[in-house]
């Protein structure tokens, strides 16, 4: 019984050695290594350039020289921002300030106004154009969201001019009425 036990033990020992040998044998005729290559691109927006003339809406004379009231046919060519893009989901926001007399800076006398309101829109980026009306109590449409990266032209339009304070008021004489339209593209979460 002791011999049998010894032989059995030997077999077990040999088996263990064989297993150990198999574990150590890690090489083969072919070896492969894999490495990941990683990088990143930040979310970004670029405003592009104004392609349609200078960055000014030239409105000319604002009043009907017969009545002194604001002209009803005021218009200016649209501006196009070309090459704008955002590399991710984005928002476009439009803001504007009323046309204001730059030299006549005091309060306008009764019957007169020193500023002109208008509506500015930016279209081409979102299905619903971003729109902002100066003098409005709220401008809910001023910011619009685009769900994906986008590259395209943005057309900026101004219109719907109205004398601040009412159509019956007359703009005061001034060689310079100035307002500003601001378009902002921003990445969105």
């Amino acid at each position, binding site marked *: 019984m002791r011999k049998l036990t010894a032989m059995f033990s030997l077999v077990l020992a040999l088996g263990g050695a064989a297993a150990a040998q198999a574990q150590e044998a890690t090489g083969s005729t072919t070896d492969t290594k894999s490495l990941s*290559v990683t990088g990143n691109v930040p979310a970004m927006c670029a405003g592009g350039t104004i392609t349609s003339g200078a960055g000014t809406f030239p409105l000319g004379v604002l009043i009907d020289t017969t009545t002194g009231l604001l002209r009803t046919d005021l218009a200016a060519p649209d501006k196009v921002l070309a090459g704008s893009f955002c590399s991710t989901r984005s928002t476009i926001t439009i803001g504007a300030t009323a046309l204001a007399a730059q030299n006549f800076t005091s309060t306008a006398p009764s019957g007169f106004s020193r500023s002109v309101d208008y509506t500015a829109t930016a279209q081409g980026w979102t299905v619903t154009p971003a729109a902002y009306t100066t003098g409005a109590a709220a401008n809910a449409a001023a910011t619009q969201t685009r769900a994906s990266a986008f590259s395209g032209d943005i057309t900026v339009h101004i219109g719907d001019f109205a004398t601040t304070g009412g159509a019956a008021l007359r703009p005061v004489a001034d060689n310079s009425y100035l307002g500003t339209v601001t378009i902002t593209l921003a990445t969105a979460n």
Partner: protein
Amino acid sequence: MNAKFILAVSGAALLAPAQSFAATTTPPATSVQADVTVVGRVASLCVLGTPSSPQIDVGQMAATSGTRVGKIATLPAQSVVLDGSFCNFGGTMLTVDATALTNLDDGGVAPPANFARAVNYTATASNWAGINAAATTAALGDGSSATKTGLGGTQGTPKLSAINLEVSNFTVPTDSLMVSGRYQGAVRITLGPAGVE
């Protein structure tokens, strides 16, 4: 009882050789000689050294200003060394499988017009045979067809060396704008017998 029976049989087996020696007339030799062949073998083995870096990170890839804003910037080549690589037999070669970097964060959807979600590059494994193993990926803007394979020349003798893997020449399909996000590709380098992929 069983133990006693086994001992009796073993004793008889030991007596038999002693009777045989007594019957022979040949004197015992003073020495005997025999040849014993010692054999062994060495398996064919190729081992790639541990890469000096487990990952190649090219960092931020897009230009953020200038005329190329939003497009791929000029990215420097990146190198990884697999020191201590060897094959103990001749007739071996390197193979490189390169997969373009593609965007991980956009859900795999096709990019908008003028955008791409892939970055191609050239992976070159050198310092093994006369001809390097090189593969240039040619993914499309949507990230499809992202993998290419390059085979190196044949190394005729066993060799031990530091294999250099370089990743360079980063480009975007049609030089499009790049969709933002994390990008990932892969390089697989294989060392083994020539003619076996």
